[in-house]
C-alpha cells in the first residue's frame, strides 16, 4: 500500500479530523516552542560571545533573524494553501491560509521593529529606503491587505477566496525580499547563514540562532492550530460534529 499518504492527507483535510489532530498536537508544539525559546535566549544572551565589531548590540539577531525567516516562511505556507484553496476549494486550505496571515504579519512587524532598533546604533538611522527594508515593508502591507480583504466580505468563504488570490499574487515579493541584498547595493548586509556553503558566523553564535528558528517554527504550528480550530468551529457551526463538541463541553 503506497497510497496511504494521500489517503491520510485526504482524511486530515476533513474539519472534524483536523480539529482533533490539531487539538492533540497543539500543546506539544507550544511546549517545544517555549523549551527551544528559553534555550535560545539563554544561549544567545548569556553563553554566546560578544561580536568583534558590534559588541553586544548584535544579540538582537537572535530575535530579528528568526522572525525575518518566519515572515517569509509563513507567507510561503499562506501562498501554497491559497493555491490549494483556489483550485480544489478545500475548506481547511482556506482556513490555514487566512489564519496564517495575522501570525505572519506579527512576525513581519517584529522584524521591522527589531531591525529599526538595531539600525539606529549600528548604521546611524532608524529607517532608510533601501531595497531590503522596503520589500519587507511591502510584505507587511501584503499581509495586512490579505487580512483586510478577508474580513471585508459578508460571506467568509467568498472573502477567503478573494484574499487567497491577493496572497497568491503577492508571493512574488518573497524572492524579492530574499535576493534584494544581492540584486541591489543596499545598506542592509548580505546573508550570513547559508543553506549551501559555509556560514559567516561562529558556531557559538549560530546554535542559539538555530534554536530560536526551531522555537518560532513550533510557535507558528501551535498558534496556527489554535486559530484554525476556532475558525473551523465558527465555519461549521451547524454541523453535527460541532454540536457534539458543544454538548460534550456543556456536560462537563
Amino acid at each position, binding site marked *: 500500500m503506497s497510497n496511504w499518504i494521500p489517503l491520510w492527507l485526504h482524511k486530515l483535510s476533513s474539519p472534524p479530523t483536523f480539529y482533533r489532530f490539531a487539538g492533540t498536537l497543539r500543546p506539544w508544539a507550544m511546549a517545544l516552542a517555549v523549551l527551544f525559546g528559553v534555550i535560545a535566549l539563554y544561549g544567545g544572551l548569556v553563553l554566546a560571545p560578544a561580536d*568583534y565589531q558590534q559588541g553586544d548590540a548584535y544579540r538582537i539577531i537572535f530575535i530579528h533573524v528568526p522572525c525575518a525567516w518566519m515572515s517569509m516562511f509563513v507567507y510561503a505556507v499562506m501562498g501554497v494553501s491559497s493555491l490549494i484553496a483556489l483550485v480544489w476549494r478545500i475548506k481547511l486550505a482556506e482556513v490555514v491560509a487566512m489564519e496564517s496571515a495575522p501570525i505572519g504579519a506579527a512576525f513581519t512587524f517584529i522584524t521591522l521593529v527589531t531591525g529599526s532598533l538595531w539600525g539606529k546604533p549600528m548604521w546611524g538611522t532608524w529607517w532608510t529606503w533601501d531595497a531590503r527594508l522596503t520589500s519587507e515593508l511591502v510584505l507587511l502591507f501584503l499581509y495586512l491587505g490579505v487580512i483586510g480583504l478577508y474580513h471585508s466580505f459578508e460571506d467568509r468563504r467568498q472573502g477567503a477566496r478573494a484574499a487567497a488570490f491577493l496572497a497568491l*499574487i503577492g508571493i512574488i515579493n518573497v524572492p524579492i525580499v530574499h535576493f534584494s541584498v544581492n540584486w541591489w547595493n543596499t545598506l542592509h548586509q548580505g546573508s550570513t547563514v547559508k543553506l549551501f556553503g559555509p556560514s559567516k558566523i*561562529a558556531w557559538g553564535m549560530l546554535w542559539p540562532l538555530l534554536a530560536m528558528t526551531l522555537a518560532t517554527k513550533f510557535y507558528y504550528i501551535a498558534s496556527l492550530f489554535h486559530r484554525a480550530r476556532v475558525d473551523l468551529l465558527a465555519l461549521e457551526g451547524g454541523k453535527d460534529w460541532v454540536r457534539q463538541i458543544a454538548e460534550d463541553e456543556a456536560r462537563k
Partner: protein
Amino acid sequence: MNPTRKRRLIIVLLVILAAATAGGLGVYALQQNMNYLFTPSQVQSGQASGHRTFRLGGMVKAGSIQRSDKSLKVTFTVVDAGGAMPVEYTGILPDLFRDNQSVIATGHMDDAHFIATEVLAKHDATYMPKELKDAMAKAHANKKIEDAAAAQDKMP
C-alpha cells in the same frame, strides 16, 4: 483531476505567471536606477552627475579622519577600488564609524568635495568573537604586510 479543477489550476497558474513576469520586468528595470549608492570611482566617471543629492558609499581611508577642535565637523576620505573622494560632515557619527569601515554618506558635490548631511555605517555579514578575530589577525598579519607591499608595487 476533473475538468473544472484543471481549468481553475490553469487560470491560477497563468495569473501567477503574469504576475511573476510583471515583477521580474519591474525588478530588471529598477536594477538600473534603484542603486542605493554610488562609489567614488562611479562619481568621478560622471555617473552621479544627474543627481543633485545622492549617496556615496565606500571605505573610510585609514588615517584620513580629521576632527575639528571647535565643532562637530569631521573630514575624511572615502575610497573604493578605483577612486577616492574627500568628504566633509558636521554632526554625530554612528558607533561603527572608524578607519577601514564601510560607510554611506548622503549629500551633494561642492567642487571636488562631497558635503554630507548624513553618514551611515554599513557592517558586514560576518559575526565572530573578538578573541577569534584577534587570533586570525595575528595569523594573517604577516600575509597582510606582504599583500600591502605587493599592492603598492602595482600602484602607478
